[in-house]
């Protein structure tokens, strides 16, 4: 964890209510699957957002304007400085991938951004994998071009069939695969049930985001674990469902 001041470089509207913001500054050491916690002027608690991409001195986030906080964030001008905690959470761990196993990255809605970061990372390690992204409709598709630009075979499912396969991400067969999944709880659960093993990124309402308040704690096979500090990524073995 690092507390740092980052500057908004740009904010781009991806869909009606999803924005991509690039933050610049001393970002610290980062990892795919980690998140940052942003203090937005006028709001008490920080807003946790996954890292969608990063380099030495920038972090890209992609977020939906769910409520007042993310809405305010999306309206901040370029050049605005933000108080941010970076490098939060454990992140995805590619060293845990079993040998000779096919890998699948499964993302749903706003669970897609951290998988982009992971995809880039795996790609850099010459690890092969499939990507399955699920959305409600074609209007809500995000980051598909970015995955394609990485030269990754990406399957898209939409609930209403307006793009790609009609249905949910579970329509794609992942039985023998090691999955990295991020998305809404029902999706994670469904993927968990049909997967061989893998890593699942959780969400929780957080107060601190760095492990001291127990706000986000859940029951796991290893006892009480904090989504913010012991997660947000949990292995299939840890999860109780």
């Amino acid at each position, binding site marked *: 964890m690092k507390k740092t001041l980052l500057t908004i470089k740009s904010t781009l509207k991806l869909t009606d209510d999803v924005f991509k913001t690039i933050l610049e500054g001393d970002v610290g050491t980062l990892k795919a699957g980690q998140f940052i916690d942003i203090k937005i002027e006028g709001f*008490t608690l920080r807003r946790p957002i996954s890292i969608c991409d990063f380099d030495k001195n920038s972090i890209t986030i992609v977020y939906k304007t769910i409520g007042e906080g993310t809405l305010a964030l999306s309206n901040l001008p370029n050049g605005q400085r933000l108080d941010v905690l970076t490098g939060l959470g454990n992140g995805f761990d590619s060293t845990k991938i079993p040998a000779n196993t096919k890998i699948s990255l499964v993302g749903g809605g706003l669970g897609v951004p951290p998988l982009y970061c992971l995809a880039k990372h795996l790609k850099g390690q010459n690890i092969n994998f499939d990507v399955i992204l699920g959305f409600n409709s074609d209007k809500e598709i995000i980051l598909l071009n970015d995955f394609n630009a990485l030269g990754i075979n990406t399957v898209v499912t939409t609930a209403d069939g307006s793009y790609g396969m009609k249905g949910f991400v579970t329509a794609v067969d992942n039985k023998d695969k090691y999955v990295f999944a991020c998305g809404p709880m029902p999706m994670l659960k469904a993927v968990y049930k049909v997967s061989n093993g893998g890593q699942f990124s959780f969400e929780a309402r957080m107060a601190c985001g760095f492990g001291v308040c127990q706000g986000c704690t859940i029951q796991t096979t290893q006892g009480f674990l904090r989504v913010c500090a012991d997660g947000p990524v949990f292995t299939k073995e840890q999860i109780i469902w």
Partner: protein
Amino acid sequence: MVNLSTNLSGLILTNPVIAASGTFGFGKEFSSLFDINILGSFCTKGMTYSPRLGNPQPRIAECKAGMLNSIGLTNNGAKHIAEHEFLAIKNYFNKPVIANVCGFSAEEYIKNAIIADESPAVGLIELNVSCPNVKQGGISFGTQTTVLFKLVNAVKKAIKKPLYVKLSPNVTDIKPLAKASEEAGADGLSLINTLLGARIDINTRKFILANKYGGYSGKGIFPVAVRMVNEVYNSVKIPIIGMGGISTAADVLEMMIAGATAVQVGTANLIDPFACKKIIEKLPILCKKLGIKTLSEIVGSAR
């Protein structure tokens, strides 16, 4: 040089700033950010005898001037805490800590207090009779004077270290509870714990907390805390650790002028992990500006 030291029933703190229970873990996460030895002390997460997961998720809700929590005393159990968390504290903190002790029966409170009393890491025991997030026990001990008297009396007899009773603000009159604690042998009082509050999501019409109601903390409760600390200061002779919404050095002084011998900083740590550090660094500067040479002299000086 401003003298910031303060005395909690024999436990001398280099400054009055203590990180509050439930908002500082066991100090480890903060110790990786700054040298936490600058703190007067810190108060550990409330412990029960058996491990507790606490209440269902979600258990955090934001408010305009603070937050609600319905953690419900998540902890690994008193024995585990004493053997692991308390034992590890010396690796990053070289002063005595305050152990926040909970329970669901008088017997359990006593057992847990003894465990804390026997831990070398602990300098003072804070008896939490005011957790709004657990149904049985906790708060029910903190709202009736006779029940409270018996509990405090029994715990006091079982331990050697100073005993502070942490009172709830969710009462018609806090003074009789403060007095009952004093008469039962409490060495001091801690106040306030959280106010009971609720938030509802207007989209889903569901309470944000799975538990519906939770404890309200942060800036929004400060005026209530100042009033209660002052009321209690005027009713008892034992020292008070004042808390509730403190986020600046000025808040610390205001709370001490109201009657607090030391203060705890809670929610502010969650929003800015450097909150205590900033407050402690600002304190001597602010004291100097106000002509305060010995901070402890301002305790209860409100008129």
